[in-house]
């Protein structure tokens, strides 16, 4: 018994790693490729080792809900001309490209409140302005970049050059980043 356990302890991890690779490959086989525009996050400190955090520059549509909560949220991706639209997954409306933010390990930041409109300048003390509504949440992905291209990508994002994240969206809703590259011209 103990002999078999000892053998399993050595073989198990190797087989498990091989199965993990097989599972990932199967998952990616039927995945559709998406090119999502991105911008840099922190102009001073973008590269963390060889990982780059980029903000997904898509257009949000509809009430996406509280994407910052632990469970994340579900979005439907749509390609409209050159733009990528991420809309709320509403019942009764088809969602051919469903993205799960939690499964995709996207970082979600709460939206920045929009600037409050100034109150009346005259006529006594101004009534306290209502709290400005929060802006839409922002989504970021972390991408591993090869050392040889890291500085070029970093510089491109700093200079505001249009850049896209090439990623694949699996049927289970996981967005798997592949690479960052300059956005096609025009």
């Amino acid at each position, binding site marked *: 018994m103990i002999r078999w356990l000892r053998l399993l302890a050595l073989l198990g*991890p*190797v087989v498990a790693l*091989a199965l993990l690779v097989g599972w990932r490959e199967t998952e990616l086989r039927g995945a559709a490729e998406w090119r999502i525009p991105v911008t840099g996050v922190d102009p001073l400190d973008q590269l963390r080792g060889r990982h780059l955090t980029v903000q997904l520059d898509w257009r949000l549509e509809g009430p996406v809900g509280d994407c910052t909560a632990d469970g994340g949220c579900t979005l439907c991706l749509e390609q409209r001309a050159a733009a990528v639209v991420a809309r709320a997954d509403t019942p009764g409306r088809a969602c051919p490209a469903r993205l799960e933010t939690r499964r995709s390990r996207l970082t979600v930041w709460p939206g920045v409140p929009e600037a409050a409109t100034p109150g009346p300048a005259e006529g006594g003390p101004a009534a306290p302005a209502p709290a400005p509504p929060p802006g839409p949440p922002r989504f970021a992905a972390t*991408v591993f970049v090869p050392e040889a291209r890291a500085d070029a990508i970093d510089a491109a994002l700093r200079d505001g050059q249009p850049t896209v994240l090439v990623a694949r969206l699996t049927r289970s809703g996981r967005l*798997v980043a592949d690479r960052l590259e300059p956005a096609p011209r025009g």
Partner: protein
Amino acid sequence: MALERDLARWVAAGLIDGATAGRIRAHEQALARPVWRWAVAATGVLSVGLGLLLLVAANWGSIPPPLKLGGHLLLAATAAAAVALAGQRGQRWTAEAALFLFACLILAGLALHAQVYQLAGPSWELLVGALLLSGPALLLHGRTALAGAALALLALAAAFAFLVATPDPGMLGQWPRLLPESLALAAPLLLLALGLLPGGIPDAGVARLLRAGPLWLLGLVAFFLAPVGWLTDVAPADTVRLVPLLIVPLPAAALALLLNRRRPRVPPRLLAALVAGPLTVLVAPLIVAHPADTLWARLLGLALTLVALGWIAHAAADAGWRWLFNLAVALAALRLLAAYFELFGSLATTGFGMVGGGLLLIALAFGWRRVTRAGPAAP
């Protein structure tokens, strides 16, 4: 040369005569090993290995992912085969080195997997994955302290990484993270219980290192967790909410005590110190209400850590476990050094911290010397 000097000194002091010195000289010459020649050869092997690693690293981007993944699996399978073969042939250190390499390759394999498939995530997931995959091999094939150290460090690093990944101290102890958090807190005590399992550990080397697990965590806690725990604001209402975090540590502590009672492997007083020390340091910031970031809270955390380490050192010295005594004292000294930096804030507090800490270190060194001289031999 050193032996010649010693022999001359001993003959001059009348401890041995010339004939005995000659016999000692002949005996030592027969046992002499070409250490320097081995050192040169080992440096060469190390240089070749590092050179190959650098060559691979320099071209990492141009190696296709399937080749990376396939090459890694081949290396891991080779290391596993080496563990099995060397174990069968009774080549203890070869098997142990291969096992250590195997565990490193499993960890590296998960990291490679994350790199190839762009899996972002907290570091604890990687460490827990590596622990689950390579832990059984380290436990069942480990024969020396190396495997025990690898297993204990992996388990403690995973627990530590998980605990510090809690998004907000106010979220601590909330469902569904309660159980994993409790499990992470209990890691040193679970390692201790594992080391005391009858027949569970095939070799005393691993068991010995596993028993030292709590000390390593105590070291980690002393440096990182404990100050953080005291820096956060814990209101009286929080203390009641955080008590359920003890759901795993307390039974783990009881299990360790029970196992040792049935089949004593650690002197009871020493075990009490090993169980209570980490438990106190980890749990105190959770259950003692304190305001955030105050000097007294920091000093209380420091004092508790030093008392726990002192208790372990004292019990270890009494039991004759000199290696454990040395480890506990070394950790206490490191903790005191870290305290200098914690007290930074103004020149006066830094000066006060350095003078106080320095005096404590000197006292520690004197006490250490006394116990080391007087203490019995290690088991």
